[in-house]
C-alpha cells in the first residue's frame, strides 16, 4: 500500500486506474454482469433503453441480428483484455530477451539483431498486420503472433538502449570481475534495473494493442464471428450507423475509454518514476 500511495495522489492516475481497472473487472465478472447471452438472438435493432416483447430491457439496444449490445460489450471486454495482455506479454518476452542480449553483447550479435528489428520496423504497422493475418489466417493465436511480431522490435530497441546504459555501470563490472556468468548478470544485475521505463511503455503498449485488436476486428481480420469483439461490432454496425448510431458509438466508447485509461496510467507511472529519480 505504501508503494502505491504516491501514485494515488495524482487525479489523472486515479482516473486511469478507474478506467483500466474497471474494464478489467468487467472482463473478469462478465458472466455475472452480462444481462443476456451475447450470442443469443433476441430482437433485432432495438434502440437503447427499449423494452423487448418479453419485457426484457435493452440498455444499449441490440444489433441487427438481435443480440444485446451491452452483453456483447461486456463479453468483448474479456476478449480484448485477454488477447491484448497475452499479445503484449509475448511481445515483451521476445523484445526483452533479444534487447538484453544485443545491448549487453554488442558487436556483431547486436548489429545482426538490430538490422532484423529495423527491417520489421520499416513496414507500416497496419500493412504488416494485414499481411501477417492474411498469410496465417485469423484466429486468436494468430492475432497474438501478429502483434508480437510487429511490437517486439520496438520493445527490443528500448530494452537494448537501457541495457547498454546499465551495462556500463560499475556494479556490472563488479559482477564480471567476480566471475559471474553472463546469464546471471543479465537476469540479476541488468534486467531488474531496466523495469522503471519499461513499466510505462508496457501500459502504453497494452493500449496500442487494444486498439490494434479493435482495428483488426474492424477490418474483418480479427477474431472470427460470432465471438464478441469491439472492433468487429463497429464493423458490423458500420453500414447502418446513420440510422442506428448506437451500433457503433458504444463499442467506440469502450475502445477509447480503455486506451485512455491505460495512457493516463502510463503518464502517472512516468511522473512518479521521474520524481523518484530526482530524489535519488
Amino acid at each position: 500500500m505504501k508503494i502505491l500511495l504516491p501514485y494515488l495522489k495524482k487525479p489523472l492516475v486515479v482516473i486511469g486506474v478507474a478506467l483500466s481497472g474497471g474494464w478489467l473487472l468487467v472482463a473478469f465478472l462478465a458472466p455475472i454482469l452480462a444481462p443476456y447471452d451475447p450470442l443469443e438472438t433476441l430482437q433485432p435493432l432495438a434502440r437503447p433503453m427499449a423494452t423487448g416483447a418479453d419485457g426484457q430491457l435493452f440498455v444499449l439496444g441490440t444489433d441487427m441480428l438481435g443480440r444485446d449490445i451491452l452483453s456483447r460489450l461486456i463479453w468483448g471486454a474479456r476478449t480484448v483484455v485477454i488477447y491484448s495482455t497475452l499479445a503484449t506479454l509475448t511481445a515483451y518476452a521476445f523484445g526483452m530477451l533479444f534487447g538484453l542480449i544485443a545491448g549487453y553483447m554488442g558487436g556483431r550479435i547486436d548489429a545482426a539483431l538490430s538490422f532484423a528489428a529495423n527491417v520489421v520496423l520499416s513496414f507500416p504497422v497496419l500493412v504488416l498486420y494485414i499481411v501477417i493475418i492474411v498469410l496465417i489466417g485469423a484466429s486468436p493465436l494468430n492475432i497474438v503472433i501478429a502483434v508480437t511480431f510487429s511490437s517486439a522490435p520496438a520493445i527490443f530497441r528500448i530494452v537494448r538502449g537501457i541495457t547498454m546504459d546499465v551495462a556500463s555501470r560499475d556494479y556490472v563490472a563488479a559482477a564480471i570481475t567476480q566471475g559471474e556468468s553472463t546469464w546471471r548478470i543479465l537476469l540479476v544485475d541488468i534486467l531488474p534495473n531496466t523495469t522503471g521505463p519499461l513499466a510505462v511503455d508496457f501500459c502504453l503498449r497494452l493500449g496500442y494493442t487494444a486498439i490494434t485488436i479493435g482495428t483488426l476486428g474492424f477490418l474483418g481480420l480479427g477474431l472470427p464471428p460470432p465471438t464478441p469483439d469491439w472492433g468487429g461490432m463497429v464493423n458490423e454496425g458500420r453500414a447502418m450507423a446513420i440510422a442506428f448510431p448506437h451500433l457503433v458509438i458504444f463499442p467506440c466508447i469502450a475502445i477509447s475509454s480503455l486506451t485512455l485509461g491505460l495512457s493516463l496510467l502510463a503518464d502517472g507511472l512516468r511522473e512518479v518514476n521521474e520524481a523518484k529519480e530526482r530524489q535519488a
Partner: protein
Amino acid sequence: MTQPILHVRDLSVALPKGADRPFAVEGVTLEVNPAEILCIVGESGSGKSVLTATLMGAAPRGLRVARGQALMSDEDLLRVSERRWRDIRGKDIGMIFQEPMASLNPALTVAQQIEEVFELHSDLPRAERQRRARALVEEMHLPEPDRILRSYPHQLSGGQCQRVVIAMALAMSPRLLIADEPTTALDVTTQAQVLKLIRELRDHHGHGIIFITHDLGVVADIADRIAVMRQGQIVEIGSAEQVLKSPAHDYTKALIAAVPSLEPHDRPPAPAGASALRVDALNHSYGTKQVLHDIEIDLSPGRVLSIVGESGSGKSTIARNLIRLTDPSSGRVVVAGQEMLALKGGALRKMRRKIQMVFQDPFGSLNPRRKVGPMIARAAMLSGASRAEAIARTKDLLELVGLQRSAYDRRPAAFSGGQRQRIGIARALAMQPDVLIADESVSALDVSVQAQVLDLLADLQSRLSLAVVFITHDLRVAAQISDEIIVLSKGHVVERGPASAVLSAPQHPYTRDLLAAAPGRGVF
C-alpha cells in the same frame, strides 16, 4: 574601514517538509570585503552550495528563503525581481561553476561567448567588444590568445575552459565573484594555476570573492578568511591564519585533522619471496593511440603500491587491464603465479576471484535492487564457499568493515557514500583475493569519511596480508597508504620507488611539479 561588498544577515533557507532537517541554511551571517577571498568550506550536505545559489538568486526548486537579508549597496538581493537579477548577474556578481565544459555553450566560439556578455550589459561598439575580449583572454594567461578566441569549448582543455569561464565572469568587472568548487574538476597542476590566477585577480582588481570548496588544502592556499559550514550553520568564521592554526570549534579541528599529510609513514622494505602480482611490458592502445607504454609492476603480498597520475595518464586503463575488463594489446599479468591474460572462459572466471576491485563511485558500484547481504554472500559463494559458509563470512565481513549486522537485509539506498564504499570493500574481500585494486576508491568521499575508509583499507590490508594496488590522483592519499609509488604520466612510468623516497626526494620533473602543485603545502 572599507565598506563590505556584500553583507548577509541571519539568512535561513527552509527545506521542504519531510527533509532530514528544517533548514538547508540556518542563521548565516557573513560579509565579503573588497580584495578579499572568503572561503566557505564544508562537507557534502553542509548547505554551502544552497547558500551561494541563494545569493545568486537561483535557489533550487522547493527551497524558500525563510528570513534574513543579503545587502549589496543597500539593495537586498533576496527581494529583487527576476528582471533586476538579469542586470545584476554578470554585471555586479560574476559566477564560476564546477564544470567548466558545462558552463560554456558548445556551439559558440570563445570570442562569441565573451563578447555576448558585453552585448548584454553594455552598448560598446563591436570593435571595442572584440578588443576587450582579447584583453581578457590575455589576462587569463591563456596561450595563443588568437587561437583560443577562435576555438570552440571542445577544442580546449578543462583548465583552459575554466579560464574562459572566469574571463566571462570578469568581463563587466563585477564587484563580487562567486566561485562554486571552481577547481574540483581540474587536475592538481591545472588547479594550482587557476588558484594563482584567482589570487592575482583579487590583488589587481580588488574583487570580493566567495570561494566554495570541500578541499582544505585549497582553502589554505587561497583564503583570506574562512567560514566553516556544517548542517546549514556557520560553526566558525575568522581569518585564515586563525581558523587553520588555532581552530576554536571541534568540527573545524576534526576537519583539519582528517586532511591526509604529505609525509609518508616509515615502511619496512619489501620482503623477499614470491610476488602476488607481476606485470611485464604491459601495453595498451585505443585504435592507433597508445595509452600505456611498457608498464612493469612487481608487488609482494602485504604491500601497497600507489599508481599516481592525472586524468588521461592511463591509470584507470591499468586497473581495467589487471582485472581484465579490457584486454591489453600486449604484456603479461601474473597473479599468484598464474598468467591471467592467457585464460579464457571458465578457467578465467575461476581465477578472477584472486584479483578484486573496489570501484570509485560508491553510488554506481552497488546494484540498487539487491540487498547488501545476499550481494556479498554471492561473491563468497562464487569463490567456492558453501551457502552456510558464505552467509557466515558475510556477517563477519560486515562487522570487519565497520557496519552493523542489520545491514544484511538492507538495500544500498539506505547507506551513505562512505558506508557504500565499505560494502564494496566487503564484497571484494568476500572472494578472499590475493590482490585488491582500489581505483580512486576514496576520491568521491568527504575528507572525514575518506580518512576512515583509508584507515579501514590499511588495517584490512595488513591483517589479511593483501597486496593492494591503489590508484589515485591525490598525492596526500598516496602518502598515507603506500609502501611504494609509481608516478604515471601520459602512459609512461616516469618515477617509481619507496613512498618516502618519491615524496621527499622526487627525481623526475613531473613528480616535482605534482608535489609543488599539491594544495595546502606548508600548512598541512
